[in-house]
């Protein structure tokens, strides 16, 4: 007998609400910020086509945020958030998005790292038992497919320009590394573990991080970029441990040292 779906907010067990609300707020806030940051490059891309693509990705991300804020409205106890009342001061956005992306390489790193990290977390909701989340996720994931192609293509193009650009890319990747990889949560999922137990997410924590690294690490290698990760025994092993002591679980941020 198949596991029954949770077809409305009132069907969610009480213990699922706080982590689900926190996750949806963080997903939506980061997608909203990503949309704004992509959009700031609509007329400044290295080519006209690149600027239009950044605009298209901006529209996609702002649309995704709108969908996720809509999901939030249905959840009891959720903070009021919308694209119109989104407040930058309490946004649960990662450090990379707090300021405008200062260069095209910054945009591409945000594209290949954060954008794809959020997509991996959403992918874990594709077969969610919580029907409102499941129904919204598929279209979001489909649009992210083109974001991945864009980021991959541009990272390879930029890296091919020479050692100075590769050093710049490595620096930006280094700045975003810890916060992006912590976003999936601690090994067993941390605050997201109850959502996995309930079937709201397929997985969280280390399995999702490994899935992300399974795509990102080979991309870095193919681009000739150094990264603090290596393949070992069928897994991706980080050169340095992640700063879990500074990890803010609810806001999904790494606090400054």
């Amino acid at each position, binding site marked *: 007998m198949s596991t029954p779906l949770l077809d409305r907010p009132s069907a969610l067990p009480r213990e699922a609400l706080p982590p689900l609300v926190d996750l949806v707020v963080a997903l939506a806030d980061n997608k909203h910020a990503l949309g704004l940051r992509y959009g700031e490059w609509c007329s400044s891309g290295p*080519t006209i*086509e*690149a600027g*239009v*693509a950044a*605009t*298209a*990705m901006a529209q996609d991300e702002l649309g995704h945020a709108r969908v996720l804020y809509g999901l939030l409205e249905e959840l009891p106890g959720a903070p009021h958030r919308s694209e119109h009342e989104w407040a930058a001061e309490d946004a649960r956005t990662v450090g990379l998005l707090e300021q405008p992306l200062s260069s095209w390489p910054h945009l591409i790193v945000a594209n290949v790292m954060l954008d794809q990290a959020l997509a991996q977390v959403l992918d874990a909701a594709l077969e969610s038992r919580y029907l409102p989340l499941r129904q919204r996720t598929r279209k979001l994931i489909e649009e992210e497919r*083109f974001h991945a*192609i*864009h980021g*991959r*293509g*541009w990272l390879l*193009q930029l890296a091919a320009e020479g050692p100075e650009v590769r050093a710049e890319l490595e620096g930006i990747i280094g700045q975003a590394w810890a916060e992006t990889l912590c976003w999936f949560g601690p090994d067993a999922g941390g605050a997201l573990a109850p959502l996995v137990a309930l079937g709201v997410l397929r997985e969280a924590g280390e399995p999702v991080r490994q899935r992300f690294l399974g795509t990102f690490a080979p991309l870095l290698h193919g681009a000739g970029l150094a990264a603090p990760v290596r393949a070992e025994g069928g897994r991706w092993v980080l050169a340095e441990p992640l700063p879990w002591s500074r990890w803010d679980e609810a806001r999904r941020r790494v606090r400054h040292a």
Partner: protein
Amino acid sequence: MKTIGSEPVYEVFARRVDGEPLRHVGCVAAPDDALARVYARSIYDEESWIEMVVVPRRAVIPVESVRTEAVDAHA
């Protein structure tokens, strides 16, 4: 290799409904096939296409064209 600026040109074809022929909707300049796909999707979004393809202009095989002898000699 035919280019606009320094990047290869890709012709973009699309159709709105089943049974309709693929029609030329424009072109994009991109360094490779992958980015050509992204740019075509981004730029030619005025319709809800059911299918869109990109073809590198260099892959186009001329059949007939009205060209001067000087152009033919150059080619």
